[in-house]
């Protein structure tokens, strides 16, 4: 019994990070109506930039390295939008999708160029987990859940209590109408990209703190985040949150039943089935957009 409880706990930890990724991905989808393939690369860049800062020639302590790394990640996110997506935003959706595949490939290979393809870590000594009712959790993992709760709570506050959040939701609902009502589109799109890259970068850093860094980490996590997005219904922020938790739990509990080689297969199969059976998501709040 404790074994399964531990698996569920691991699932919640992984899921809270997937939720961070998924919320960013779904916000971009909600406003711009395209799937940003390069979202995963923001995750990887967030993690690798911290690695860059804590090693020579910078040798910054870890807790000081996070903030500048996240700022640069945000700059990458905003830069993507300004130089690639904005010029294409009024064209064909597929053009945007192919362009974002190009951006993703460019950014991932830049990581491989700078840091190589090998597994890397921050070099922090593993700490013994805290035992609690037969379950084990490390301080890093508590930080992961705490950060996810903090970021998503702040997002909730922003979306429901501020004028900016209101305009953001209005744009997601109907871009043209929102623009007609005098909502500053530039400000909204800037906010979306900043939030999406902030969540991706922070999540990537936390994930790397708990596991390790490799160039494909962006791609694999992006696919999981995408499964979460679909589960919650594309464009639905709270759906993505629940979807992320669900994917995390499903994946970790699934290990008890399938061979570990098929761990990623679970999210893939889930995406495929969801797309075909429930394209509006389990919590089909958002309608009409496929």
């Amino acid at each position, binding site marked *: 019994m404790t074994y399964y409880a531990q698996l569920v706990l691991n699932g919640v930890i992984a899921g809270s990070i997937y939720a961070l990724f998924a919320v960013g991905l779904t916000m971009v989808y909600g406003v711009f109506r395209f799937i940003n393939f390069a979202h995963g690369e923001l995750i990887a860049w967030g993690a690798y930039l911290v690695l860059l800062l804590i090693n020579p020639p910078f040798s910054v302590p870890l807790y000081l390295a996070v903030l500048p790394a996240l700022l640069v990640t945000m700059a990458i996110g905003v830069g993507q939008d300004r130089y690639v997506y904005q010029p294409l935003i009024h064209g064909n959706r597929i053009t945007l999708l192919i362009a974002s595949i190009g951006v993703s490939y*460019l950014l991932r*290979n830049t990581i491989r*160029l700078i840091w190589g393809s090998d597994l890397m870590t921050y070099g922090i000594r593993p700490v013994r987990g805290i035992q609690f009712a037969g379950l084990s959790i490390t301080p890093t993992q508590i930080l992961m859940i705490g950060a996810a709760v903090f970021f998503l709570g702040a997002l909730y506050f922003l979306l429901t209590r501020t004028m900016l959040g209101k305009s953001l939701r209005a744009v997601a609902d109907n871009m043209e109408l929102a623009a007609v009502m005098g909502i500053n589109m530039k400000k909204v799109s800037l906010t979306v990209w900043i939030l999406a890259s902030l969540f991706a970068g922070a999540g990537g850093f936390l994930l790397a703190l708990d596991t390790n860094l490799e160039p494909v980490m962006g791609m694999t996590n992006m696919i999981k985040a995408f499964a979460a997005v679909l589960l919650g219904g594309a464009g639905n922020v709270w759906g993505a949150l629940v979807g992320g938790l669900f994917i995390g739990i499903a994946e970790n509990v699934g290990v008890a039943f399938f061979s570990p080689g098929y761990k990623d*297969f679970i999210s893939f199969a889930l995406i*495929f089935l969801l*797309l*075909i059976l429930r*394209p509006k998501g389990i919590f089909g709040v958002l309608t009409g957009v496929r």
Partner: protein
Amino acid sequence: MDYLLHILIVALIYGIFAISLNLELGYTGLYNFGHVAFFGIGAYTSALLGLSGLPVSLSMALGMAAAGVAGALLAIPALRLTGDFFGIATLVFAEMVRLFFVNERWLTKGPMGLPGIPRPSWIGEGIAGLPMFLIFCILLTVLVALTGRRLATSPFGRALKVVREDEYVAQTLGKNVLSLKIRAVILGSVLAGLAGCLWAHYISYISPSDFTLNETILVLLCVVLGGKGTNWGPVLGAFIIIFFQEALRFLPIPADFGRLVAPLQGMVYGFVLILIMLKRPEGIVSEYRGSRQC
């Protein structure tokens, strides 16, 4: 000289692969981002049958058939989706197929791959067989490209283009859109299977790492760069990409930096893909030969 033959053969195989993707992406407007799955299914089926002692021509035919069946199995459910969501479904399908190749060791030997795949007996093994294999590839490429051209001007091909431009118009004209799309995907998969078979029997060794997202992006780049919806654009794209890839090997790069070549290549591919989308989305060979000025 042999090296040049090798590059030509690889470029031709990618040319066939690109033509097959172009059938779906260019003519029908189906954004298949998992096309490498059919390349892989063709390659693995043909390789396994060839290794078990079947004549190569027969195993290649069966490989193509297997790819076609897989295409039908994917197309029938996945074509209920449109646009980018179809793209995602196919991408995920390709990853599932790859994970299957990695994990089902009893069949595919997993990450170890399958070595020693035989060539057709009349071609001959090793370097001695290169010229014959090249001729074989040229014949097949010309055949596939001519079929593609015949198809594009046939009522079927024109119906596909109507589907691409506007599904509702096609429906109004009494075309069965779903059936047209399914047939396009099956045809594309069979041809991708052919390219996969050629690849397996030419290289004579395959492993799951030959059929990743990288290959999908490479062939996507061939089609988009060459010109989607044209007959020779994809082949041209394939030649440019493969020759570029091989030319990088001759750059005077110090041995210590050898590991930098592959990432640099990837960066260039990504950058070119972005640049084409921004500056010339129709590719080098335009479908409309500059006549569409509006």
